[in-house]
């Protein structure tokens, strides 16, 4: 981003350079020639060793909550309750998994999550791609206005209450539309796509239009087939966001049959659905709560954990595309 400024700003201030000059003369002195280099290299070695240790600690701390949840999900509640479960399960059992996997509500909500994710991602992609393609055309009249309209919403939005009133009065409560429509376009994703389309060679489209292709034809037959990487990245961005989303569902859905699995989990955490309804008995409701939560968490993150190692490079390249400005 803002590439031009880098060189200018990284030029060493004059003061530093003059400060460094005497050092160079010192170094020429044979007595000083070896000593500082040696000292620096041991210091650097120490730093590198420390750095590796530190970053490994960061990795451990980052992964720890996940390992802890997995361990708890396989542990018996007695051990969880006495605070003995950390990295590996104690009193190994899969009873809770059986209970949850046999729960109809869990599967219904899981299915809803899949449905919402697929529909919402499809809608988002259609809207984002068509808008991005049009506003990437530099000679489109009104382009600045269209871009401005979109970008302004990044910094200013209507707020919770007016949105709620609007969705309610549109009659979208307790329908899939309240989940898949209100956040259909992410301006961030839109801008990434726009800059991708802008960087496509113009000659390609000019040649296609000389060959008699219309703007639709160019988009569907030339541009999109060449944009598979960015389209895949955008699909991933939207799909993960939709898979993880809960707040729209929390606001606009009242019927448990419509809940996505994030709401199933949220209600469990908030204690709305007590563990009892998922198979516990009245006395040990609190005790097995942690165990049941862990199992639900594991089952919810499982699909993401499974695809994560393979797709994370696309996320990375997507963010890069958005940030690198020529």
């Amino acid at each position, binding site marked *: 981003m803002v590439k031009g400024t880098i060189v200018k*700003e990284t030029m060493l201030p004059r003061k530093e350079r003059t400060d460094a000059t005497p050092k160079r003369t010192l170094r020429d002195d044979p007595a000083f020639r070896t000593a500082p280099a040696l000292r620096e290299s041991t210091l650097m070695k120490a730093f590198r060793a420390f750095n590796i240790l530190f970053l490994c600690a960061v990795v451990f*701390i980052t992964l720890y909550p996940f390992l802890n949840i997995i361990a708890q999900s396989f542990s018996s509640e007695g051990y969880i309750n006495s605070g003995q479960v950390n990295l590996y399960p104690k009193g190994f059992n899969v009873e809770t998994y059986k209970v949850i996997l046999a729960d109809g509500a869990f599967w219904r909500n899981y299915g809803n999550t899949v449905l919402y994710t697929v529909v919402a991602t499809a809608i988002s992609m259609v809207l984002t791609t068509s808008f991005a*393609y049009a506003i990437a*055309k530099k000679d489109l009249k*009104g*382009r600045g206005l269209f871009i401005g309209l979109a970008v302004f919403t990044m910094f200013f939005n209507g707020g*919770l209450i007016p949105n*709620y009133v609007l969705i309610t009065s549109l009659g979208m409560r307790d329908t899939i539309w309240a989940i898949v429509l209100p956040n259909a376009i992410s301006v961030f994703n839109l801008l990434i796509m726009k800059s991708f389309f802008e960087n496509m060679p113009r000659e390609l489209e000019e040649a296609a239009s000389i060959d008699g292709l219309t703007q639709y034809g160019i988009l569907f037959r030339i541009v999109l087939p060449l944009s598979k990487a960015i389209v895949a990245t955008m699909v991933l961005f939207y799909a993960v966001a939709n898979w993880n989303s809960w707040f729209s569902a929390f606001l606009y859905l009242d019927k448990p049959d419509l809940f996505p699995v994030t709401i199933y989990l949220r209600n469990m955490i908030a204690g709305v659905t007590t563990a009892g309804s998922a198979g516990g008995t009245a006395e040990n409701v609190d005790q097995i709560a942690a165990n049941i939560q862990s199992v639900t968490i594991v089952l*919810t993150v499982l699909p993401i954990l499974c695809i994560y190692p393979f797709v994370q490079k696309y996320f990375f390249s997507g963010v890069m595309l*958005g940030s690198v400005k020529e």
Partner: protein
Amino acid sequence: MTLQLETAADKTTTAEPATAGRRTKGRRAPKTGWKAAIKRDWRLYTLIILPLLYFLVFRYLPMIGNVIAFRRFRPGGNIFGETWVGFQYFQLFINDPSFWQAFQNTIILGLLTLVFTFPMPIIFALLLNELRSRRLKKFVQTAAYLPHFMSIVIIAGMILQIFSLNGTINQISQALFGTTVNFTQDAGWFRPMYISSEVWQTMGWGAILYLAALTRVDESLYEAAKLDGANRWQQTWHVTLPAIRPTIITLLILNIGTFMAVGFEKILLIYNPLNYATSDVISTYLYRVGLESSNFSYAAAIGIFESVIGLTLILSANALSRRLAGTSLW
């Protein structure tokens, strides 16, 4: 996206919007009338219709819907309210001590977030950049990005478990000090709990843009610095940091812009009435009075107040950085 404007997009947004806007001005096509433009590009305009409708209905209509802050509103009635009442609702919240408590909590949490979570990705990126083994670097990155891909509901579940009475933190506390603390219920512990989990969540992914900027630093600058006798630390201070300064400033401005929105969804999931004294922020308070107690107009008034402060913050941060650092979003 959602109220937080989709954490992912929000936190990693870049100077893009600004440059986009500026460029359009420079390269506008030679003046053609709308009629000619539509005749030539009607296919492009048809592509725009649906997305434009989306923005108007789901983004701009709610902005106009804010007029209910000045009007009496009946649920189920006109979405723009019934009768004008002026600044009545604004006066109401200005005299409401719960609001001011939420306001104070918002400022404190926002500042703590800025102080603790903003520098961490920079430090992390710099340390990562010093790693020689590419495989180790890749491994650390992969692990550190993971929390970013988790639903906030899952993160909330993890926070509540780790900090629970028999969770890991209390096990450590038990081993070291022989006492346990009810972190999730104790108002005094909410801020540490919130900030530490925020650092955990954002440090890895937040480093991505810095890592990208680091790969673009001109190698010859390091060579020059070495010739001048700069050691590794001096190279970092005089070459690396200035090189990623535009990135730092851009992200700082954006962070300041979302200052008022402090982790609304996360707080909503992990707070409870016992720690409202420190955990209740403007957005959660607005949510409770607006949607749980159905005071739509009152909550809309608070919402406007919040948005205006947010917009003012981002505008002044931008102006300040343009004047002081010569880098700005627009």
